[in-house]
């Protein structure tokens, strides 16, 4: 006997993501979900961004390091709340699920926050599949990764609002064409906002921070 069921396989995650969105907007907190391959600079970028914004805004960070608490420890010096998501001990999970983000968010005093950074698990495939409920997805590609990432992982670039091209301080020693990377990214998603930055030298951070502040204002007006 055939039974029609027509169920989206990830429907459960999508439902939780939707309720996360409502939770975040109830409390007027802007949530940014940072995704990239391993080592592109998520932790460094969060570190620098929090450092620059923490005097003007109330910030927290949710970290999804699957194997260790190294990133959480690195960020603990910032003096803002850091929540480490405990991922499956055996699964070696490759993404954050909306329910874990929810649990982490609920352990924060959301009414006392303006901004939450989520550091997703280093991976360009799975995190694109699992909506966290964040207001905006931010994808990071570091220059040493080359120009082709948007063409190889189009879904990730489709669901993101911002592309941060990190490690541009290395441009002079690499044979990577930033313009081609931009063009590839815009081909996949013409609405992407692109910022070239270096989390090492701080180059390009002004424009990225201005974007965050504009989003914070939009959130407040809602």
């Amino acid at each position: 006997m055939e039974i029609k069921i027509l169920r989206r396989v990830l429907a459960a995650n999508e439902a939780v993501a939707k309720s996360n969105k409502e939770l975040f907007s109830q409390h007027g907190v802007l949530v940014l979900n940072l995704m990239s391959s391993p080592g592109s600079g998520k932790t460094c970028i969060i570190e620098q961004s929090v450092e620059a914004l923490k005097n003007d805004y109330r910030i927290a960070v949710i970290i999804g390091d699957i194997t260790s608490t190294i990133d959480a420890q690195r960020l603990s010096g910032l003096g803002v709340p850091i929540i480490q998501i405990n991922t499956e001990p055996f699964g070696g999970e490759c993404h954050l699920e909306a329910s874990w983000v929810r649990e982490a968010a609920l352990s924060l005093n959301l009414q006392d926050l303006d901004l939450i950074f989520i550091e997703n698990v280093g991976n360009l495939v799975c995190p694109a599949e699992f909506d966290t409920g964040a207001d905006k997805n931010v994808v990071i590609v570091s220059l040493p990764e080359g120009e082709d990432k948007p063409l190889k992982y189009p879904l990730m670039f489709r669901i993101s609002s911002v592309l941060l091209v990190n490690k541009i301080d290395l441009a002079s020693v690499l044979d990577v064409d930033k313009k081609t990377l931009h063009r590839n990214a815009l081909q996949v998603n013409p609405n992407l906002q692109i910022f070239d930055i270096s989390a090492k030298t701080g180059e390009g951070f002004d424009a990225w921070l201005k974007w965050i502040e504009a989003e914070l204002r939009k959130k407040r007006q809602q």
Partner: protein
Amino acid sequence: MHELTIAENIKKTIEEVLKDKKAVVTRINLRVGKLRAVVPEALIFCFKFVAEGSSMENAELKIQEIPVKGICKKCDRDFVIDEPLFICPFCGSNHVELLSGRELEIESIEIEEG
């Protein structure tokens, strides 16, 4: 890894549908959009692994791949997208909305009631 999580979610979803019903699942019909970057062989392999010992362990996973289709918001024509270039082949506009390609759904299952 990706396929393993999807396989687990397929099993969970079917368990929810069947609840306490005593039935052996013989076939699972899936629709998977090309943008999902799912490797069918890997998904079948992972599903075998997660379904072991359950009423679906012998189920055949049938995967229908759905092409990525877009519609141009400028000239209103639709087309299949074979490579990750979201550009209208007719007018060159990059104002393309996706019509399909992100599906990841169980369309139906076939069961034998016991």
